[in-house]
């Protein structure tokens, strides 16, 4: 199955918290439950969207090999990521790059950013000649519209958050990973610089055919860059499909709610009606122990939703949804 770049097969991650003494008080937090999806090995951007606590970052860490699933398999190009890390860690690290949310945390403040780029080139691309590295770096910066003379020779704190995130894209351009995992890369940078980052991300897809798993809570940017969208709700995958279809005609009630709640940057289209009242059901914000994870907030919840969890079913046109409202739709499986 070489046409699949990344595959999650029935993946669950359970974190244990508390219970320092003996067996008492330990609690299991199910971060993601029974997630299955595939990313095809073609240059495309797949957005993974969901609210806080939906398991987005857990999936990013699983895909980057920073976390092992409690149950299930995470495969990169047909092989378990744990096998990659045992046998070909260097190759895996070269092929799969991650960009974290915080553009402040990843650079060593004591060194100029040049060193960060040189080291990466040395370790991952085996380019040891500094002059050669330098010319490659300058070329990569130019092609992403950055000015090397304003960036090189500086310390991380002398750069803006947007520049630091774009440096990760420069790195991607140099190392040419097959898969780029971007975990909320623009949530901490300003609007004027966010736009440039998103444009660069699209350029990267076209220039070096990198696939990208773009993780975000922001449906507008997801819609802007992504070819496909996966929607997570309380650790479950509830809907997936081509971006324009998911946005223009969402199937799952949760996706519908998300899209209805988007704040549009247009005063002519005011719609902040939301529900001013908080429903008692959200008081504890517990996710239901059984049944559909969204049923407490779902306006269409039925009897069956309380007892049984809906499966992810095929809806046609490359779309999938996990909701009983669509169970009667003829499956194309």
């Amino acid at each position: 199955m070489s046409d699949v770049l990344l595959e999650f097969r029935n993946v669950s991650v359970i974190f244990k918290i508390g219970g320092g003494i003996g067996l008492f008080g330990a609690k299991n937090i199910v971060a993601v439950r029974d997630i299955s999806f595939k990313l095809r090995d073609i240059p495309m951007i797949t957005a993974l969207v969901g609210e806080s606590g939906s398991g987005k970052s857990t999936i990013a860490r699983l895909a980057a090999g920073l976390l092992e699933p409690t149950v299930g398999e995470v495969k990169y190009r047909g092989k378990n990521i744990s096998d990659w890390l045992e046998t070909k860690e260097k190759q895996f690290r070269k092929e799969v790059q991650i960009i974290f949310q915080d553009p402040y945390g990843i650079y060593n403040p004591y060194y100029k950013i040049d060193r960060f780029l040189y080291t990466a080139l040395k370790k991952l691309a085996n380019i040891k000649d500094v002059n050669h590295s330098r010319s490659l770096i300058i070329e990569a910066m130019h092609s992403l519209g950055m000015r090397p003379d304003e960036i090189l020779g500086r310390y991380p704190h002398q750069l803006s958050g947007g520049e630091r995130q774009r440096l990760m894209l420069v790195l991607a351009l140099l190392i040419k990973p097959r898969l780029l995992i971007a975990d909320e890369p623009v949530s901490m940078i300003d609007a004027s610089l966010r736009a440039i980052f998103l444009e660069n991300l699209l350029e990267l897809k076209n220039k070096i055919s990198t696939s990208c798993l773009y993780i975000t809570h922001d449906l507008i940017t997801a819609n802007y860059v992504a070819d496909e969208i996966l929607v997570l709700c309380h650790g479950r995958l509830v809907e997936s499909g081509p971006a324009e279809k998911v946005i223009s005609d969402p199937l799952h009630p949760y996706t519908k709610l998300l899209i209805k709640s988007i704040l549009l940057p247009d005063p002519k289209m005011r719609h902040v009606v939301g529900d001013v009242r908080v429903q008692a059901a959200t008081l504890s914000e517990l996710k239901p122990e059984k049944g559909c994870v969204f049923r407490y907030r779902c306006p269409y919840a039925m009897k069956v939703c309380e007892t049984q969890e809906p499966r992810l079913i095929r809806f046609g046109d490359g779309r999938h949804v996990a909701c009983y409202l669509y169970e009667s739709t003829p499956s194309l499986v």
Partner: protein
Amino acid sequence: MEKSDLLTVDDLKVYYKTILGDYKSVDGVSFAVHKGEIFGIAGESGCGKSTLVDGVLRLIRPPGYIKSGRVVFEGIDLLKLEENKLSEIRWNKISYIPQGSMNSLNPVLTIEEQTTDVLVERGKLDKDRAKELIQQKLSVVGLPKEILKTYPHELSGGMRQRVIIAVAIALNPTLVVADEPVTALDVVVQSSLLALLKELRDKYGVTLIFVSHDMAAHAQLVDRMAIMYAGKIVEIGETDHIFRDPIHPYTKLLVSSIPTLEKKKIKGIPGVAPSPLNWPSGCRFHTRCPWATDICSKIEPPMMKMTDNRYVACHLYNGDVM
């Protein structure tokens, strides 16, 4: 000062002392907020939004200081007021929702204990009256009264923010200043909180100053707005005009950098925001402005009145200098 103005800020300068010199976070800002309106203050990180509202409420602590300016609220200059008179106005007439305040609730006290404490202290109420009042305000913000018995960790971020709003409006202030009240919350929660803020004005007549970096939130909520850049206000106008027909180059570029669902091409603003230690000479945006001419780097453009309710500080335009 016009009759409908509730608050006017005149050439306010708020600096921070550092060993490298003064950090000129807010460097000569003027605006007026009309009674009963929702006034937005927008701008990117580091432009001085939070320092501005801290200055307006005189909450600046050393090394920060108010260099000069006037802040007139209901005819009284807050910057000249004695401290004890000022604290009477705070909470009773003006209340403040600081950035991230939903995370400042005390984790070891119940919501009831900490909210009634504030009202007893600030409103000079007895405990029972305070509890009654907070129950009433919780229903205004859409929370069931059962949450009084809970601890902050049992509530979601959106619910904690509602608790903060309930306390902020408890003593029926005329003006509420909210600094990034919907930031770091989920979209669904953001949308309902904006609806709540709007209801406070529509139903209860509260005047609101809404500070946010999020242009979409402004588009959805505020009546008029000010755009800040590098410690100054560059444009003030009705929200609709700001988005439909921005006139300052920075506002133009900022508006065109926001993606919408229609997926039109977006463009960022190249370059870096300047440092408050060393603002550029002349117009502070000239280093990034595609329309900049010679004069822009030499002379600082004054704030000019263009048409009704529209103010801009840019050499490209001619208007009445304020």
